C-alpha cells in the first residue's frame, strides 16, 4: 500500500471512529428520553406485569391527550407562559435601564451602588426564600401573578451583562448622537438597544427558560392547585397513584416541547446567553 493510501485509510478510520463515538454518546444522552416515551405510551398494566419494555408495546398514543385533559395542563402552561413573559419583559426593562445608567451616566455613589447590586449575585433565592414568602403573604400576594413574578423582575446578572455590552459601544456614537441633539431616551431607543439586540435577545431567552422551569418559588407562594405552574403539575401527577404514572410522564414530555422548540430555533442565542460570563468574546 502506498503511503498516500495508508494516510487516506487512516483518516477514514478516524472519521468513522468519531462518528461511532458521537453516535454512542448521543444514544446514552437520549436513552432516558426514549425510555420515557416508551413508558408514556405503554399502558400501565404492560409494565406492571412484565417490567418496562425497550420498545413500545401495545402503544397508546392517546395518553398525550389524556394527560392534557386529566391534569389541567393547558391552564398550567398558559400560566407558566404568562409568568415567564412578565418576568422576561420586567427583567429586560430593569436591566436595560440600570445597565444604561451604569454605562453612560455619572451620578453620586455610582460605584457603591454597582457593588451593592452585584453583591446580590451571592444571595441565592433559596437563602431568602423563607423571608420573601412571608413578605409575599403579608402583601396578600399568595396565589397571584404578582407573587409569582415580582421578586424576579430585577437581577444582578442581567444588569451586569447589559452594562458590559453597553460599555462596548464606541464613545464616538454617543458623541455623534449628542451632536444630533439626542437625549438619553432617544439615544437608548435608537442606538443602544438596536446595537445590543443580540445580547438582549440572549438574555430574554435564558430568562424565559429559567422562569418556565422554576420550581421552588412557585411551589412556595402557591397553595391553590389552580395556581399550579407546569412544573408544579408534574409534582402533582407524580405523587398520584402508580397506575397513572404514564400520565405524569406524558405531561412532562408535553411540558418540555415548547422549550425544545425554542432551543432548536434559537440555539445559537441561548448558548451565547448561557456561556456569557464563562467565556470571553
Amino acid at each position: 500500500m502506498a503511503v498516500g493510501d495508508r494516510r487516506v485509510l487512516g483518516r477514514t478510520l478516524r472519521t468513522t471512529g468519531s462518528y461511532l463515538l458521537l453516535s454512542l454518546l448521543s444514544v446514552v444522552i437520549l436513552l432516558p428520553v426514549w425510555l420515557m416515551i416508551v413508558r408514556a405510551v405503554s399502558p400501565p398494566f404492560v409494565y406492571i406485569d412484565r417490567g418496562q419494555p425497550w420498545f413500545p408495546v401495545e402503544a397508546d398514543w392517546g395518553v398525550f391527550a389524556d394527560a392534557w385533559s386529566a391534569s389541567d395542563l393547558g391552564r398550567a402552561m398558559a400560566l407558566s407562559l404568562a409568568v415567564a413573559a412578565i418576568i422576561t419583559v420586567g427583567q429586560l426593562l430593569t436591566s436595560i435601564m440600570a445597565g444604561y445608567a451604569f454605562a453612560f451616566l455619572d451620578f453620586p455613589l455610582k460605584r457603591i451602588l454597582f457593588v451593592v447590586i452585584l453583591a446580590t449575585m451571592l444571595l441565592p433565592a433559596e437563602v431568602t426564600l423563607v423571608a420573601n414568602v412571608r413578605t409575599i403573604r403579608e402583601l396578600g400576594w399568595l396565589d397571584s401573578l404578582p407573587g409569582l413574578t415580582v421578586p424576579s423582575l430585577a437581577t444582578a446578572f442581567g444588569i451586569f451583562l447589559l452594562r458590559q455590552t453597553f460599555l462596548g459601544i464606541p464613545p464616538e456614537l454617543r458623541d455623534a448622537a449628542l451632536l444630533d441633539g439626542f437625549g438619553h431616551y432617544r439615544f437608548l431607543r435608537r442606538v443602544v438597544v438596536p446595537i445590543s439586540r443580540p445580547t438582549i435577545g440572549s438574555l430574554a431567552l435564558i430568562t424565559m427558560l429559567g422562569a418556565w422551569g422554576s420550581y421552588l418559588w412557585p411551589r412556595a407562594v402557591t397553595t391553590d392547585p389552580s395556581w399550579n405552574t407546569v412544573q408544579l403539575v408534574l409534582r402533582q401527577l407524580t405523587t398520584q397513584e402508580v397506575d397513572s404514572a404514564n400520565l405524569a410522564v406524558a405531561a412532562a414530555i408535553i411540558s418540555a416541547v415548547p422549550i425544545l422548540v425554542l432551543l432548536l430555533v434559537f440555539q445559537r442565542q441561548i448558548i451565547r446567553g448561557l456561556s456569557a460570563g464563562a467565556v470571553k468574546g
Partner: protein
Amino acid sequence: MLLPTLVLLGVFAYFPLTRLVHMGLWRPNRFGTRETWVGPANFVEVLTGEDFRTGVWISARYVLLTVPIGLLLGLVLALAAHRRLKGIRVFQTVFSSTIASSAAVSAVVFYSLINPKIGRFGDVSWLSLADPDTALRGVALSSIWQNLGLTFVIVLAALQTVPDELLEAAALDGFGSVRRTTKVVLPLISPALAFLGVVLMVSAFQSFAQVELLTGGGPAGSTETLVFKIFERQSPGSISEGAVMSIGMFAITFVMTMVQLTLTSRKVHYGGR
C-alpha cells in the same frame, strides 16, 4: 432609571437578609399571633443542631455526587463534539438538548426509570430510591443528566475560543493529541471550567425539585437536603429555625463561592502571563 432595580433588590434581596436575622431572634407562638425573644442562643442551638448538620452533610454529598462527574462528562462530550465533521451540528444539538429539560422534567424522566414501583431500573441496587444508603445517588443522576446540556455548551464555547494556530504550533512541536489536550487546551479553558464548577456547586448545594419529586426527602430522611429542610420549616412553630438555617446556608454558599473564586483565580490560566 435605577430606582425600580434598587427597590426590587432592596425589598427582595436585602430586606429578607435582615428579616431572616429578626426571624431567627424572635420565635412566634403556634398561631403566629405573638413573638417572643429567643435571642442569639437560638442561632447557636440551630446551627450546631442535628438537623442543620445532616442537611449540610446531605447537600455536600449531593455536590460531590453531581459536580465532578457532571463536569467530566460535559468535558468528554465537548471534546468529542469539537471537531470539523459533516453533520457535527446535529450531534452538538443532541448533546445540548437537556437544556430544554427543567429540574422537574428531568426528575420525571428518572422517576419513570428508577422509581422502585414503576421504573425499568427500579431494582438496580446501587441507585435504589428505596434504600437510605443509595437514594441520594438516584436523585443525583437526574441532576447530572439535566445539567449535561449546560455543561456541554459552556465547555464547547470555551473550546471554540482556543486559537487553531496554537494547536497547529503544538502539533509541529511534536505534541500528540492527548498532550495537546492536557497541556494546551485544558489550561486555556480552565477559567470556563472554574466558572462552571462554581455555578454547578452552588446550584447542586441548593437542589430541591429533584428531591421533592423523586423521594420526597425519604427514605428515612436520607435525601433531605438543606433547602428541603428549610422548606419544611415554614410553619409558625418552626419558621425561626428555618430562618437560622437559611442564614447558615447563606454563609456556606458565600464561603464556597469566595474560596473557589480565589483558589481558581490563582491556578487557572487567564492569558497574558
